């Protein structure tokens, strides 16, 4: 099986992508959305003509709401980002945007989140991430409890976790790029995407490991078996179904990216990437790693 033969190339590719994602994470940093840090987002659409951005900026500065960011959206709209606003401030902002009633507009959406709500959500997100990771690790330990020779079951679990990190870090890196170039912000859905990728990634790795487990059981005489051959054989038997199962999910996700609601666009894109790299890692990363570990074990003996 060529995947096992050229395992170092595939492993190298994964390492490269992970490093690239991590460095983009450190270079660009993550833009945190108002979900987590608090703030207000006001979207308006003008009825006939939208005022010049520079002109409107001056107008908004006179409100003294601290730093505000004005972004054009669509043909006739603007999005205003600011600190969280109370009702009176919100009304003042709308009045200024409408040039005191001279340029009529409709408010498409308004979202104001107090900083304490943001802090709490951040805590919640972190707790959820820790819990999901713990649960998944426990589940992996459970799922692989029966496979123990020649590679012990905790090593399967360890590899599953390595691929898990791989599958999460690369889409996160992609998101950082999106956030840098297209202004996507890390919001609640980002956290949901990361956690969903965790679930999907494990299920994909399990399909392949399950095959290895079954093939190992069928081979009698533990000393004679060629581990790397069995792994290669198992991957060969199961890569089609692994790709097929992911493909169906990727197909629906692409439908969501291109035709779905605007709010879930980046979310779906991230999941697509997670799904893609999840499949890649279960075929091109998990199995080669398994063989590599076994080789190291033998060398020690």
């Amino acid at each position, binding site marked *: 099986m060529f995947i096992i033969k050229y395992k170092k190339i595939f492993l190298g590719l994964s390492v490269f992508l992970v490093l690239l994602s991590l460095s983009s994470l450190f270079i660009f940093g993550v833009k945190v959305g108002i979900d987590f840090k608090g703030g207000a987002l006001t979207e308006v659409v003008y009825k006939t003509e939208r005022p010049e951005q520079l002109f409107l900026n001056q107008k908004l500065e006179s409100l003294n709401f601290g730093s505000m960011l004005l972004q054009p959206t669509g043909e006739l709209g603007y999005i205003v980002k600011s600190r969280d606003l109370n009702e009176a401030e919100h009304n003042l902002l709308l009045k200024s945007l409408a040039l005191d009633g001279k340029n009529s507009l409709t408010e*498409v959406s308004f979202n104001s989140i107090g900083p304490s709500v943001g802090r709490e959500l951040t*805590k919640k997100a972190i*707790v*959820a991430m820790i819990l999901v990771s713990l649960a998944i690790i426990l*589940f992996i330990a459970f799922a692989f409890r029966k496979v123990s020779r020649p590679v012990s079951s905790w090593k399967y679990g360890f590899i599953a976790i390595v691929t898990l990190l791989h599958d999460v870090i690369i889409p996160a890196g992609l998101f950082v790029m999106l956030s840098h170039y297209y202004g996507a912000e890390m919001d609640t859905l980002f956290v949901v995407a990361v956690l969903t990728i965790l679930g999907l990634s494990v299920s994909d790795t399990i399909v392949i490991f*399950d095959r290895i487990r079954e093939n190992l059981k069928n081979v009698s005489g533990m000393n004679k078996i060629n581990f790397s051959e069995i792994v290669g054989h198992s991957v060969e038997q199961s890569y089609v179904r692994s790709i097929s199962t992911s493909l*169906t999910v990727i197909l629906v*996700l692409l439908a969501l990216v291109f035709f779905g609601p605007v709010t879930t666009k980046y979310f779906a894109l991230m999941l697509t990437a997670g799904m893609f790299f999840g499949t890649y890692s279960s075929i091109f990363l998990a199995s080669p790693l398994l063989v590599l570990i076994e080789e190291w074990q033998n060398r020690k003996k």
Partner: protein
Amino acid sequence: MWRKVVLALIILILAGGIAFFVFKSEPRLNSNFESSHSFFKKFPFRLGLDLSGGSHLIYKADVSALKGAEVSASMEALRDVIERRVNLFGVSEPVVQVQESGFALGGDEKLIVDLPGVTDVEKATEMIGQTPLLEFKTERPADSPQEVKIGADGKAVLDLSSQFVNTELTGRYLKKATLEFDANTREPKVGLQFDDTGTKLFAQITKANVGKMVAIYLDGSPISTPVVREEITGGQASISGNFTPTEAKLLVGRLNSGALPVPISLLSRQTIGATLGDSAMNAGVKATIIGFLFVALFLILWYRLPGLIASISLLIFISIMLALFKLIPVTLTAAGIAGFIISIGIAVDANVLIFERVKEELRSGRTIVDAISFGFSRAWLSIRDSNISNIITAIILFWFGTSLIKGFALTLGMGVLVSMFSAITITRVFLGAISFIGESRVARFLFSSGLSK
């Protein structure tokens, strides 16, 4: 043999019934919705605010003055008060819920108010924060000037409100209100019990106005103008204002809800315009349909006859899910629709695993019938294991999430569970039913997959 065909037909009929239910109970699909049976009108999709438009308000409740044990009872009382107030201004299906600070997370006690269709939040927040205003007024001294208006019919009308002057007694001094019925006329009355200050004030007022009218005003309009017969010192009064029992009950509720048990302040609000909600809804439906078509196309091209059957069982899966959304009911949000769409992709995973197994068994020389039965039993373990991790994620997301995350977790988790049933049971019955096509080369071609002949 025939048993399997009959079973398949029964499933088809049941599925048709479910699909029919979803169709009939959905005004967007059913053009005769208005004239259809009231049963179908009871189950609309419940749309979240990001799809229907409306406002989402988060209030912080200041419970610092309360002891730990009292907090949750006060929060419940607060919820009831706010819910009553929200209901009073006629919002359809408002949702008022308490979000407790929760262990390990800390944070504030919060009250979340969802007002579908309300985008004028200023008015709404005003009403939520407002206490119903109960005032007691006494007759204006006879020598002071009175306003007279000329009514539409040309007669002079004495403006009632100008006849009364304010007193210090208001609903603030109310201890509680009760619903009573007059012993003689059986008419509903609202009984009032004042607190100490209120009792004193009421005694003063009644003493000074024996033989005169005292007007009871609610939110600025008079609801009852009884004549005082004697001084009342017990601090009890009753309003008999030609109420219907429902009105009286509502008033009692409002008066009792008068003061909020704990002070609240608005932490954050989100308003989504109806047009934005509409376009998100349409996009969600479009993505679902296109996603399904993509998957069905792939299944049929790659897995041929079993693929076609999987597509049919996927349609049944979608009908079951939509019916469940209506019956439970599940509040659908953009994230919830995303979870549902992803579950469509995951739903066929089990079928793919089975078909790949069946193909393998066919290659090793088994007959089609045998291959199908082996394929199902051998694929089960990996189906179970690969779904468990998704269910774990969904459960934890649901447990810890905000309403947005909950919507996603719920639809995804339900999707995974229902799909395990639909992919395995329904597809199996259908495949069993068509196994009569025999062992011809055509049959084997139809059961193969991918690029093989």
